[in-house]
């Protein structure tokens, strides 16, 4: 093309010339509709899975819901051979292990998160962050194996005898290593990365101006954390803890390996217990009767309701926290 031709631009036709159209250009409407429908189908399938989980678990649980009624969650006798099913001991075990695990994991997880965002030396933040992610990558069964063969013997020989000297209702009873304490410890290890990485993200979302403002006014790093960062991020941090609760309640294999598998209600941390997820893991594959399967599915239904409730609450809190941070930044 010559200079002169460029100087007077040609008038463009309303449609590109035939040679410039590519295949299917005029028919893009129907192809777009197909694409949209396929995508909507895939996305819908994803949405339906959640409903599908609820419906199909409830359907298998139905015979048990009819047979046991409300006593299912108020009694603790679990005897498949007589067909008597009460799940209170599992609920108790789940609450006890999750609580102890959270008491251990929340302060440590928050400490790690603050180290990564505000307090730690910058050059250490990246490697520590990767290592914490590695902690999350180890499969649950491997933690179970380690807890059963390494942690439980240590608890039996050294930790629990020492704790027994303190005494009290928490630290007494049979000392076998396996039990609520061992399960809680391994749970705490597994919760740590969740709590640490979600709170790290939430703390990072606090606008830099707020931090810088505090530091410019003479605040020490800890003052900035205490007076500016944490108050700003508190909902998100709470959400991170709730996500941790959801994980604690649902964690199965590692707990099943060390919890002791006995449907008892005891305040002692040394005693063997059972949790909702681990009883499903241990008994579902060998369940003897229709009603036994139904009762285990009903435990699953309880588990589903609890974890969904915690996750929904946590997601809302974390999303709101990150959004308000983004809003303050804009």
């Amino acid at each position: 093309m010559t200079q002169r031709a460029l100087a007077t631009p040609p008038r463009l036709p309303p449609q590109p010339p035939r040679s410039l159209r590519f295949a299917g250009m005029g028919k893009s409407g129907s192809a777009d509709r197909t694409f949209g429908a396929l995508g909507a189908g895939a996305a819908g399938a994803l949405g339906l899975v959640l409903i599908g989980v609820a419906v199909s678990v409830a359907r298998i649980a139905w015979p048990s819901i009819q047979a046991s009624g409300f006593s299912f969650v108020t009694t603790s006798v679990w005897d498949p051979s007589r067909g008597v099913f009460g799940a209170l001991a599992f609920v108790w075990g789940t609450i006890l292990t999750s609580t102890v695990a959270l008491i251990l994991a929340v302060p440590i997880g928050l400490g790690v998160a603050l180290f990564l965002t505000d307090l730690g030396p910058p050059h250490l933040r990246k490697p520590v962050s990767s290592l914490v992610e590695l902690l999350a990558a180890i499969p649950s069964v491997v933690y179970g194996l380690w807890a059963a063969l390494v942690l439980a013997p240590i608890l039996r020989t050294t930790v629990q005898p020492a704790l027994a000297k303190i005494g009290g209702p928490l630290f007494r009873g049979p000392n076998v290593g396996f039990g609520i304490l061992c399960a809680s410890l391994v749970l705490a290890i597994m919760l740590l990365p969740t709590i640490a990485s979600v709170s790290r993200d939430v703390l990072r979302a606090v606008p830099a101006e707020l931090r810088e403002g505090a530091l410019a006014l003479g605040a020490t790093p800890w003052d900035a954390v205490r007076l500016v960062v944490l108050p700003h991020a508190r909902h998100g941090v709470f959400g991170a803890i709730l996500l941790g609760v959801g994980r604690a309640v649902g964690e199965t294999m590692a707990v099943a390996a060390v919890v002791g598998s006995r449907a008892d209600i005891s305040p002692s941390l040394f005693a063997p217990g059972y949790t909702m997820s681990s009883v499903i893991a241990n008994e579902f594959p060998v369940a003897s009767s229709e009603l036994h399967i139904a009762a285990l599915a009903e435990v699953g239904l309880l588990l589903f309701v609890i974890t969904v409730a915690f996750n929904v609450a946590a997601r809302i809190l974390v999303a709101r926290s990150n959004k308000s941070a983004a809003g303050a930044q804009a």
Partner: protein
Amino acid sequence: MTPELESAYSGRKLASRFATGASSVAVVLALLPLVAVFAYVVSRGARAISIPFFVEPIGERGAGMANAIVGTIQLVFLASAMGIPLGIMAGLYLAEYKATRLARAVRFSADVLAGVPSILVGVVVYAVVVVWMKQFSAFAGAAALAIVMLPLVARTTDELARAVPDSLREAALALGASRWRTALFVVLRTAAPGIRSGCLLAVARVCGETAPLLFTAYNNRFYNDSLLDPTSTLQVQIFTYTMTPNDDWHAQAWAAALVLVAIVIVLGVVARRLLDEKVPG
């Protein structure tokens, strides 16, 4: 600075130093179990790993885990074949139609689904697939793993595709490309390195998933003849051996744990590499 201010400030500085120390202690406490688990898995696993471990099927003394290794590979491939395309489709839809009510609802339920205990996925697949086929099968196990992967892949794709700048979309549309072409050949291609890395992480995650396999793929002492037979996997075999009082089997479990952890870490490292390479834009 006045002396009073000076002393107040030194107090606060002390507090800050104390807080930094406390957070460092938290880091040490968090990394302690990581080191402990690694040390045991590597040392005990390396001692127990041997050639028969990789070539002999499950059995008594001197046996290996060959059929469990094959089983895990089978399940993970089949699950990826089902879960990854569907997850990418769903994620792309969520990103391209991000404001629709369906997209918002699905995005939220994917997040919630990712938090549902994986053992419940096993219960569902048992109720639907195992009861329908009247037997445990590798296919059922793979379906369970695919469901575990689905929200992970979909949400990664969604996040990354939404991060693709709208100017690229507008440029494609202005050149006359249709929406589906724009989505597949502009958005998906731009976000591809991150999506690949996300998919690898999802694969790494299901390599270790055990709970959903307990009553779907179940277990098998022998090689499974077809995908419709129950199959052994490394994950389930580790759990089975953990629960026995037999030292030989414990050694086998450590070896299997080493293999599993090695797979997960290699996948994780490759995923990170892919992510670091993407930069040219």
